[in-house]
Each structure stands twice: as structure tokens, then as C-alpha cells.
């Protein structure tokens, strides 16, 4: 049975791990082994607790609508707004929270051979986990802001420590973009409170107060959208993500992936739509346009570029277009699809980057043409790549399928014409990945001088195994989780329906 301390433990255990790691010596190999083992424990324990304690809530009848378990304690009173230490899981955030804990375990495993700045690296990695799990676990907008801003500097440092060409510039871009996004979120929140006369930042309360009308609502919504879309890496705010992933080491790239679209997509649904539905209704057309632009820009860029990491980064940007489209459709089905696709992304995107990183790191090549056939004798990498790519384009039985299916079905009802373009974008995205898969993993006797990339093994294999298992299992058993997610999104959809002149069509 979940207790009040469960979520606090899941969120803050990595912070304790970071402090322990910082205090450990790193003079010998044994010391370094202890450091990474500590980091592994600090990430694996929250995962085990989350799996054991939280996932059981999914099968409870009617669960998902009301946050449970909950810890709620007053934090700041007597100011213009009230701040609470309020954590809780519901249909919107539970799966994302569980998946994030799994991915961080995989990231630590992927960092097993890391050698530079040992303590700092693992400590920053663990601190980043606190920020991302906290973003998902909180039920208070004030705390959401804190956790939303939390990982910016640690991620910037991790990226800059890569010391590859352009890593510092990419870190600067990340910090500036995400600081501005955080600023937009703060400004939007404060304006919302000021205009609505509300003082509490509790999600439940905020989603029941009257939405702002006219220009104030539009301004608040624009600020919320800017924050969410910048974090997602949506067009035209995607450069920080593409540049970051293309210069980062493989584990840091995985971190960037898990801290971008899942957090941004969640903020889009939880904050931008649920908190300001009137404003959201005013920006439907721009949102749909942005969804198509992001999808096509990402897919076409991935198709056009030769750099393997950039192909992966751009194709991940394109997935953001699908999430935006799902959010802009407003029905509970499409919103559930958007959240489930974010959930799928948490497993599939790091897996994709892990495979791409492994190929580039071992071959010391980054361009697609010289890599022809390089990974033809690496069946594990090939399988992982296939799972990741297939999950992200919605191949049945994998974790991405339910999300994309729900988005498309709801989209066909609400925006038939746009949905046709979305499907075209998915096809383009598929061709981009097909090109990579075909080029890198199939045998190419004409390029025999390229040394074959060794297959995944050791900690890297376990890391990939964790992510691939998540992508397959949560796809196979999606039937258990989808109703739970729908319960969470139903409240958001109902709130939008309540203020909409014509209620959005509910897809069955």
C-alpha cells in the first residue's frame, strides 16, 4: 500500500545518493567502482519502489482521476500566493514517473565506462533525476516551477563537460533557452494568480477556478505554451536539443532526451491546457500549425542530414509534433495519446540514442555514408534500434502504438485534414529511420574497409535491455495502463469542454 513517504523517497533518494557520491574518494579503480555502484543503487531503489508501490494503483477501479498517494504540507504562507509541499500521482503523471526512474537506472548503466570527473558526473546525473522525477510527482504549480527549473544548470554542466567541439556553445544555448522557458513559466503562473485573484497553486484547485477570458488568458496561455514547447524542443525552439544531442556523450544525450519532450509534453497538458483552457481554445490553429511544422521540420531534417546523431535528434524533434497534435485535439482520447506517447518516448528515445551513440563511439565515425554496413554484425544493437524506431512510429505491440493510435483516431474525428498531413509526417519519419537502419545495419560489401562495430555488451547491454524491456512490456500490456491515463486526461478534457463554445468531439 503506498504511503505518504513513497513519493518523497522516489524523488529525493537520488539527492541523498548525490551527496554520498560527492563524499566518496576516487583514487583507485575500486573507489570508482563504489561510486558508480552507489549511483546505481540511488537510481535503482526509486525504480523498485515505484514499480512495487505505485504501479499497483493502476489496476484500482476509478484510479487516475484523483491523485493518490498524496503528501501535502504547507510550505509558504502569508505571501501573495501559497506554496505547498504537495506530491501525488494520477493518470497524467504516474507512468511518466515510473518510466523516468527506469531510464535513470539505464543512464547510470550506460555511464559505467565513464572516466572523466567521476564524482561530479554521477552527482550531477543524480541531481538531474531529482528535477525530472519531481516535475512529474508534484501536484503544486509552485513546486512544478522549482522542479522545472532544477535540471537546467546540472544539464548544462554535464553537456559542457563533454568538451567536444561545440559542447560549450550547446550548453550555453541549453541554459539560455531553458532559463527563458522557466522565466515564461514563472511569469505565466504569476500573471494567472494575479488576474484570477487566486492564491493557491494546488493543481486541483487551479483546475477548478474560472479560466481567464480575452487577452489576459491569451497572454498566460502563450507564456505557458512557450515554456512547454521550449522544453519539448518544438520548432522553432528545437536547436538547443538538436545541438545538445549531437555533441553530447551518449548518456548525457539520453538525459537530454528524457528531460525534453516528456517534461515539455506533460507541462503542455498539465499546465498549458488544464490551467488556462480559455486561452488554449484561442490558440488551437497556431498549435496545429506548430504541430505540423515540428513534425515535418524534424522528419525532413532527419531525412536530409548525414550526421547520425543529428538524424536521431531531428527525428526525436519530429515526435514532438505528434504530441503537440494530440494535445491540440483536446479530447480525452487524444490527450491520453499525447501522454502515452511521452511515456513511450521516455523508453524509446534514450534507447535510440544509446544505439546511435554506441555505433558512433565505436566506429569513431559520425556520417551516415562511411558507416554503411558498419553495424551489420551487431544483432543486439540492430534489435534495439528496431524496437526504438518502431516504438516511436507506432508499430503495434510496442509502447508507442497506443499513443499514436489514440492521437490519430481522435484527430480523424476532430481535424481530418490535418490528421492526413500528420500521417504523411509519420511516413516521412519512418523513411528517415528506414534509411538509417538500412544503411548501418544491413551488409554492405562495397564498404568493407570500415571495421565492424562490436555488439552491445556488459553494462551497455543491460542498459539497453532495461529500456527495450520497458518499450515492449508497456506496449504488450498497454490495456492495463491506457484506462488509467484516460481517467487523468478526462478531467483536462472536461475542463476544456466546459469553457468551449462547442464541446470537442469525444472519440471512441
Amino acid at each position, binding site marked *: 500500500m503506498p504511503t505518504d513517504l513513497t513519493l518523497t523517497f522516489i524523488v529525493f533518494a537520488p539527492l541523498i545518493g548525490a551527496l554520498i557520491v560527492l563524499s566518496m574518494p576516487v583514487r583507485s579503480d575500486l573507489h570508482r567502482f563504489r561510486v558508480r555502484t552507489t549511483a546505481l543503487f540511488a537510481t535503482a531503489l526509486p525504480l523498485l519502489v515505484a514499480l512495487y508501490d505505485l504501479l499497483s494503483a493502476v489496476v484500482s477501479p476509478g484510479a487516475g482521476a484523483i491523485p493518490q498517494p498524496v503528501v501535502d504540507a*504547507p510550505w*509558504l*504562507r502569508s*505571501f*501573495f500566493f501559497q506554496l505547498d509541499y504537495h506530491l501525488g500521482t494520477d493518470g497524467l503523471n504516474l507512468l511518466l514517473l515510473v518510466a523516468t526512474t527506469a531510464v535513470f537506472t539505464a543512464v547510470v548503466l550506460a555511464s559505467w565506462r565513464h572516466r572523466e570527473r567521476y564524482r561530479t558526473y554521477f552527482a550531477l546525473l543524480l541531481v538531474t533525476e531529482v528535477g525530472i522525477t519531481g516535475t512529474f510527482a508534484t501536484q503544486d504549480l509552485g513546486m512544478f*516551477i522549482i522542479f522545472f527549473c532544477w535540471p537546467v544548470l546540472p544539464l548544462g554542466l554535464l553537456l*559542457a563537460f563533454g568538451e567536444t567541439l561545440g559542447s560549450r556553445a550547446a550548453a550555453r544555448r541549453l541554459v*539560455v533557452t531553458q532559463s527563458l522557458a522557466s522565466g515564461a513559466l514563472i511569469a505565466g503562473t504569476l500573471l494567472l*494568480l494575479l488576474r484570477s485573484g487566486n492564491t493557491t497553486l494546488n493543481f486541483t484547485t487551479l483546475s477548478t477556478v474560472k479560466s481567464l477570458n480575452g487577452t489576459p488568458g491569451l497572454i498566460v496561455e502563450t507564456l505557458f505554451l512557450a515554456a512547454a514547447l521550449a522544453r519539448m524542443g518544438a520548432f522553432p525552439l528545437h536547436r538547443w536539443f538538436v545541438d545538445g544531442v549531437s555533441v553530447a556523450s551518449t548518456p548525457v544525450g539520453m538525459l537530454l532526451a528524457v528531460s525534453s519532450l516528456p517534461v515539455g509534453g506533460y507541462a503542455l497538458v498539465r499546465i498549458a491546457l488544464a490551467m488556462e483552457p480559455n486561452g488554449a481554445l484561442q490558440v488551437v490553429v497556431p498549435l496545429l500549425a506548430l504541430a505540423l511544422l515540428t513534425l515535418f521540420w524534424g522528419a525532413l531534417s532527419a531525412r536530409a542530414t548525414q550526421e547520425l546523431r543529428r538524424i536521431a535528434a531531428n527525428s526525436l524533434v519530429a515526435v514532438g509534433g505528434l504530441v503537440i497534435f494530440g494535445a491540440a485535439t483536446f479530447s480525452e482520447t487524444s490527450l491520453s495519446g499525447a501522454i502515452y506517447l511521452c511515456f513511450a518516448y521516455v523508453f524509446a528515445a534514450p534507447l535510440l540514442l544509446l544505439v546511435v551513440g554506441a555505433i558512433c563511439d565505436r566506429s569513431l565515425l559520425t556520417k551516415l555514408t562511411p558507416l554503411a554496413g558498419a553495424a551489420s554484425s551487431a544483432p543486439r544493437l540492430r534489435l534495439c534500434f528496431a524496437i526504438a524506431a518502431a516504438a516511436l512510429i507506432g508499430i503495434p505491440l510496442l509502447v508507442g502504438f497506443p499513443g499514436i493510435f489514440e492521437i490519430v483516431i481522435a484527430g480523424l474525428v476532430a481535424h481530418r485534414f490535418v490528421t492526413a498531413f500528420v500521417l504523411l509526417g509519420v511516413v516521412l519519419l519512418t523513411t528517415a529511420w528506414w534509411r538509417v537502419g538500412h544503411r548501418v545495419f544491413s551488409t554492405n560489401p562495397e564498404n568493407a574497409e570500415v571495421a565492424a562495430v562490436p555488439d552491445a555488451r556488459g553494462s551497455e547491454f543491460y542498459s539497453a535491455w532495461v529500456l527495450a524491456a520497458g518499450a515492449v512490456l508497456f506496449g504488450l500490456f498497454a490495456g492495463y495502463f491506457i484506462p488509467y491515463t484516460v481517467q487523468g486526461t478526462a478531467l483536462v478534457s472536461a475542463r476544456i469542454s466546459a469553457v468551449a463554445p462547442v464541446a470537442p468531439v469525444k472519440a471512441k
Partner: protein
Amino acid sequence: MNLAFLEDFAPIGILLLGAAICAGLDLREADSHGPALGRIRWVALLALLLAFAASIGFWKSSFGPTPPDIEHGSLVIDRFALFFYAATLIAAGAVVLCGSDAESELDPHRGVFYLLLLVSCAGVLITASATDLVAMGAGLALAVLPMALAQGLRKTDAEAVRTAIRALSVAGFSLVAFLIGAALVAGLAGTTSLRAVPAGLTHVDPLLVVAATMVALGAGAQLGIFPFLWWRSGAGSRLPALPFLAGTVLGFLAGSAVLLRLLAGGLGAGPSTWTMTVAVLAGITVVVAPCLAWRQRRLGQTVVYLLIAQLALVLASLPEISRQGTAAILYLLLCAIPLAAALLGLLASIAAQGEGDASADLRGLWARSPLLAGGLAVLLAGLAGLPPLAGFFARLLAVDTALHAGLGWLAWLELLSAVIGGLVVLRWLLTLFDARVDGPELALPGRTAMVGIFLCAGAVLSFGVLIGPLFGIASRAGLSPLIGP
């Protein structure tokens, strides 16, 4: 003869008595560098501790259901004043502890420094208690001038003396600006009593804007607001570290106390013609200071500019004349003081080892001295406002306060300032953690300095989490009879 008034003056009296003892010890031992010279620090700390203990009595009684205000005509010991009493005495104690590694550079004038420090503390206490323009001016002079004088104590360094003379001149100039502003207010209101000023200001007079601007400039100079930020940063100077640290921290407190008492308190109830002037000054400072910080190649000056950017939020929050607005300012001060003491103390300790604070000197410090670099990194992260550290909440409250005051543009400038500050700190963090290691291994600060820095770093780390109770105290202190219309 009724000597009850002595009780009310106990904290200030103890400080002045401590100053007299420091002077005596200095006179006795200055020539011989005898053992008493080393004891002066502890005498000063004892005086600060006793003064703090004496303040606690008032503090406890003022938090009852009907808190008594103890009047002295031109001084009052209300909760607002007591907040500053506590903050000043703790800050001065933190400065003495954190900067202890650098006190030897003041020899043979160590005793004079502690004398000036205690007198300056008494000045801040008088400033915070003042309800009369004349008393406020006297208190501010007493707070500012001793520390400006103390900066000239390293007489063996001609460059340091020249900079100290410049600092003294600017301090004098800022005091004159304040006194002209105060005189104009007194002339317009027909009284020097702050309680009577709002009643005297019955109509909007353009001269009031001039008066408020002069007051804001005079008091704001202590916070380093535009155009005084170059002076407050000690740009290009080789000022002795301990007086510079003490002058910075006590100046912040004295300036904030005057701004709150006079502008938010005295003029707050009158026509609000001054708010835009103050907001513009704050807006310029919050943007210019981090930009100047970006240009610096020395960490000490970068830190001071970033502190100025944070302290400018005090000025930015003044137009919101309410209990919450005042409490936000007080909380901001609580967060900024330990940051300033710990960061400048750490840098003083590095300087005492003969190492510079330029980026070339600190490159790769993490590999050479991990604890020192880790401490610097945590404190710099606090300065950047990284959540959930105290600086983050201070900035958040300031932005909300500006919005409530109807100054949306100022809120945007504050957010922009935070972004630039974040970039500056990122650059320094990258320097500290740089893989290129070129320099000697640095020792940790001395035991006394270590205790001070550890306590201040603990405050930086915990004040964000403890925002609830701390803000509660700040809001009680913000509900003074002089605050709000």
C-alpha cells in the same frame, strides 16, 4: 533618576562598549603585536553576541498579542527594527568569522578595524530604529563612514589607500545626496518625524520626486544601485578583504533599512509619485549589474556585481507598499547576507594564501581543491538562483511583488537579469570544473573561517526549504506602524 531608557539602548550600548574595549586593547598592544591583538576578534564577537542576546528580550516581547513599541522620540524599537538588529548582528558575526583568514593584512590596525566594525553595527541599528529624518541621517553616516574609513587601513599599499579615499569620497557624496533628499522631504512635509510626514504631504509636488530620488540614490548607493555599482564593486581595487566584506554587508543592511523606513514607510502613505523613479533605478541596475558581471575576469568582482543585481530587487520591490512586499524584501535580505559573507569570505581565504581570484587562477580548482571548489560552486549556484536554494525564492517573490505593483516591465527585466546571472555563473562553474589544471593546490580556510563559511553555506542551502517560517518572521517584521498606507 530614571535609568530605564538604558535598557532600551542596551544592544547599541553593548556594541559601543565593545568598541571602546577594542580601542583599549589596540592601544595597549598595537606596537608589540602582543597576544591581546589576537583576542580582539573574540572581544568583538562577544560584543556582537551580547548585543544579540539583549535584542532577543525585545524580540520575544514584541511577538506577543499586543507587541509594545518602545518610543524614544526619534527612535523606536519595533519588530521591523528588531529584525534588522538580529540580521545585522548575525551578519557582522558571520563577517568576522568568514573573513578571519584575511584579518592579518590589517596589522597593526586590527583593533581599529574591530572598533570601526562595532561602531558601524551600532550605526545600522540606529538607522533601523530611526523614526526621524535627522536620526536616520546620523545613523546612516555612522553605519557607512566607519567602514569606508576601515578600507584605508592597509596603509602599506598606496593603491589600496587611493581606492579607500575614493570609497570614502563616494560614501560622503551619497550621504550628502541622502541628506539633501531628507531635507527636501522635511521641508515639504513641515516635519522631520516620519510618523507625521504622510500627513504633511497633502498634495503632489514635483519636488517630492526630486526628494525621493535623492533619498533613493543616497541610501541605494549602499546597495550599489546605478550609478554607484562601480564603486560598490571595488572595481580594479586592492582593498583589504575584511573591511570590504564588512562594508558590503553592513552597507546592504543600512541602505535597505533606510529605503524601507523612509520610502515604503514614511512616503508610502503619501502621494506615490516616487515609485516610478525608484522602479527605473532598480530596472537599470538589475540589467546593468549582471552585464558588468559577465565582463569581469575576477570572481570577487563578479560576485559583487551579481549581489548588487540581487540587492537591486530590494529597490524593485519597494513600489509594492504592503506587508507582503516588505516581507519579500526582508526575506531577500536574509538570503543575500549569508551568500555575500560566505562567498567573499571564501575568496578572502584564497587571497590570504597568495592566490588570485582571476579565472586563470581558479581554472581547474575542482581537481586541485575539491572541497573549496565545491563550496564555491554551491554558493555560486545560490547566487544564480538555482532552485530550491534561497536565491530562487527571493527572485520569485521579487518578480511577483513587481507584478502586484503593476510594474510588469520590471518583472520582465528581473527575469532577464536572472538569465544573464545564470549564464555568468555557468561560465564560472565551467572554469572551476575545467579539466585543465594549472596552479597549486589550495588549502581549506582556517578553522574560524571554516565555521563561518560552513554556517553561511548551511543558511544558503536551507533558507529555501525554510522559506515558510522565515517568511513568517519577515511578514511579522513587515507589519510595522510605519509600513503601508
